[in-house]
């Protein structure tokens, strides 16, 4: 297993370098100008000067190499310095990846955006799993029962109705009509005591509920079909004929076997938590990573888009590996060596 992981990690490195090059090339070929959002009153020669100072006019390869050095050498060193409170070499010599729209360090902005994205999407993910697995299990066990039919109906709705619709519906009902929840998310809010905690729960309630429904819908269908596959297997009949109680048959034998594909699916979805939910963040005005990405794309903020997409690429490659490793642990029949 150790050799397998090491091999996979080694393969991942060239993969990621190629990915970063491809992202860079695509962004370079795409039309866009960081000065396009300036008012028309800013004259063309000033725009040219701004593009020059941003390095927009540098040759493609030079920018890529510069970015690679900042991303793989400078920024990790900065993080190490900050975490361990030590200084390695002259920190001021290391140029950081600077956003073209804010002139702020890209990595700091991403770190600033992570908490809200992480909380909302992470909670929605956890709730989604907590709802989906029991619903999927019961639906499969009591196939075609009322519970199964209702569950199927709700998950079909959750899966097929887009979040920008359920989100707006939630705002109209719970913010406009009932006045329970605020319609925008305060990223500067700190939880210090009970009332501030209540406020935090309130401002997260709607986006988390909407995303949970969406996550749970797909996952519960997946759990259900995986359970159904296993329920008709021979080993289930054997377990029952041995006289095991139904609960044991269901939870120990069937569920455990059915979870293998479900766990893989969950692991592969985790990078999405970091990537943010662009539409949901936009509707509930949660200025998280998704909103950061979309506004960076609109503003032709190449360093920001480049860094964000690359981080997503790293996470996806990483969790693919993790999913494969977990698979091996869950299913002893699978051997990698």
């Amino acid at each position, binding site marked *: 297993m150790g050799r397998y992981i090491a091999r996979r990690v080694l393969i991942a490195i060239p993969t990621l370098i190629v990915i970063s090059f491809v992202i860079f090339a695509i962004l370079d070929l795409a*039309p*866009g*100008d960081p*000065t*396009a*959002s*300036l*008012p*028309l*009153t*800013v004259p*063309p020669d*000033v725009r*040219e*000067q*701004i*593009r020059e*100072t941003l390095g927009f006019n540098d040759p493609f390869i030079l920018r890529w190499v510069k970015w690679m050095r900042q991303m793989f050498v400078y920024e990790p060193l900065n993080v190490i310095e900050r975490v361990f409170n030590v200084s390695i070499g002259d920190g001021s010599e290391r140029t*950081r990846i*600077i*956003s073209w*729209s*804010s*002139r*702020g360090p890209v990595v*700091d*902005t991403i770190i*600033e*955006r992570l908490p809200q994205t992480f909380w909302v999407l992470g909670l929605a993910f956890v709730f989604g799993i*907590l*709802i989906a697995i*029991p619903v999927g299990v019961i639906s499969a066990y009591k196939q075609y029962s009322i519970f199964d039919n209702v569950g199927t109906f709700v998950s079909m709705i959750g899966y097929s109705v887009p979040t920008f619709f359920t989100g707006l519906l939630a705002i109209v009902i719970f*913010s*406009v009509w009932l006045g*329970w*929840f*605020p319609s*925008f998310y*305060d990223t*500067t809010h700190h939880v*210090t*005591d009970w*009332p501030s905690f*209540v*406020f935090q*729960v*309130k401002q997260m309630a709607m986006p988390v*509920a909407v995303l949970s429904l969406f996550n749970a819908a797909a996952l519960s269908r997946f759990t259900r079909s995986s359970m159904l596959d296993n329920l008709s297997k021979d080993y289930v009949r054997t377990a029952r004929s041995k006289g095991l109680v139904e*609960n044991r048959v269901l939870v120990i034998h069937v569920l455990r076997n059915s979870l293998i594909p479900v766990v893989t699916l969950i692991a592969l979805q985790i990078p999405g938590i970091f990537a943010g939910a662009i539409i949901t*963040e*936009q*509707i509930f*005005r949660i*200025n998280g990573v998704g*909103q*950061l990405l979309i*506004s960076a794309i*609109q*503003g*032709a903020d190449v360093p920001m888009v480049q860094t964000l997409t690359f981080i997503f690429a790293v996470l996806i490659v990483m969790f693919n590996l993790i999913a494969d490793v977990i698979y091996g642990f869950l299913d002893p029949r699978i051997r990698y060596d």
Partner: protein
Amino acid sequence: MTRYRWLALVAVMALVLAACGTGTEDTPDTTAPSGDTGTTEDDSTDTTAAPDTGAGQGGTLTLLQWQAPSGLNPYLSGGTKELLASSLIIEPLAEFSPEGELVPALAAEIPTPDNGGVPDDLMSVTWTLKSGVLWSDGTPLTAEDVVFTYEYCTDEATGCTQSSLYAGISSVEAIDDVTVQVNFDGPTPFPYSAFVSYQAPIIQKAQFEACVGAAAQGCTEQNFGPIGTGPYMVTEFRTNDTALYSFNPNYRGVAEGKPYFGEIVLKGGGDAEASARSVLVLGEADYGWNLQVDPVVLNDMEATGIGTVLAGFASNVERIMVNQTNPDAALGDDRSEWNEGTNPHPFLTNPDIVKALSLAIDRQELNDIGYGATGVPTCNVWPAPPADSTNNDECLTQDVDAANALLDSVGAVDSDGDGVREYEGTPLRLLFSTSTNAVRQTYQELLKSYWEAIGVETELKNVDASVFFGGDPASPDTYQKFYADIQMYTNGSGSVDPQGYMGNWVTEQIAESENTWGGQNIQRFQSDEYDALQEELSQTADLARRAELVIQLNDMLVQSGSIIPLTWRGSVSAFTNTLTGVGNLNAWDSEYWNIEDWVRSE
């Protein structure tokens, strides 16, 4: 057994959700007009405020800017959103009022020829600072800071977005601690560009000294937290998200109890409609900026009765630019090239044809659908008083018959019976380009139908705004290249004074491959008479004569048929009804220009 355990879990979660719901009913957070969420922070201001004057006692003011500021240095990020956010902190020498008049900010008075601030030769202007103004860190503001601001922005490597405001200046010198003299390269009848309005505020020398030139981009701490003389100072800044401000205890108005609000939350994200809903329907915020929302929707929201929509008008006009050169793709590299006037458009250089196009338009209908109360139909390139022309008002009423007659009279008739007129053998077919934007596409559809009625065929095209307005010389779709017969967008003057703006259409500003399409004369308009008048304008100091000249320039542009003005566009914002002291919406300067006077009344 397990089944019930699962059900119990679901039930518990349902209870948790229900608890969230009931917990909110007894707290009036969401119905209170401002972010009451900050109640704990509000209390802390009582200790810092000077209780005797009442400054900073007003609690929290919540401003929504759905396009959030990316930075707080107006010299590096020149979008209106950043200018607004920084105008709470840093101030210029003088500001423009909503009526377009100059009001002293850091200056003691506006220098004029009458008070000796502007000499007769118009070669300089001398500003005197208010005495005793302090930066928020307690140090005094001096003339050195003003000189430094000039040096900062004019250093080429800084990449200053406002450097055009400092153009034409030979030097800026500090005469003494409170006197600054700005010397110009040539006579400057309107010397109020540098250091005036939220586009050109004074930054602190001590803070930005190490950030001049190439170092400017890396000065994150300074760019996100400038020290200023204004009523507020920034306490937390999150790029493209939120800015938190607290009132500046060193502000010169503190003795008079200004500013009223102790804290400001400037929140971004979402879109214009969500912002409008937050202010006008939910009362979650006190102010919502730039609410370009369908006028019907906005009216419905305003009818809730807890907020009011304000519109302010500067000089922005949605207009159709009429290509004076031939954009035929068959010309290859010569398409839309002026080539010293040798490449005229086959029919759009005929003023009567363009006049017919203009007469066929129902401007009122366009305005009602697109902008409602936040737009006014106009026939002028320069719409703002006192230099607004009345000579072109004929076009305000749609007159299809007159348009048809005009086309017939110049010989543009449908000779082959295909429903499209021909002029000297060329069918009147237009390629109409604009940026992607719901209102613009509605305008396009309507315009197409108006012109169909007079036998002119239109092909519509729209380009993503970041490409259309981006200056990429490699892209064929930019508005500068103008590879279309007509194109539509909004432009206006950054200054109250029209001189610089009207200077866009002189011959040397024609956009062409030679200057990599860097000129501002997008429609390739050329008139020696226009150039001479513009030259005269730049030498004339008399205000009445200046207005006269601007009207003449405006009429030449419109009557030449190179620009078809459509709508005078206002900026539109909404504020909650408990907020008083806002006054008229300022479209010439920062909408927050008088924020120190804003008060909450119950």
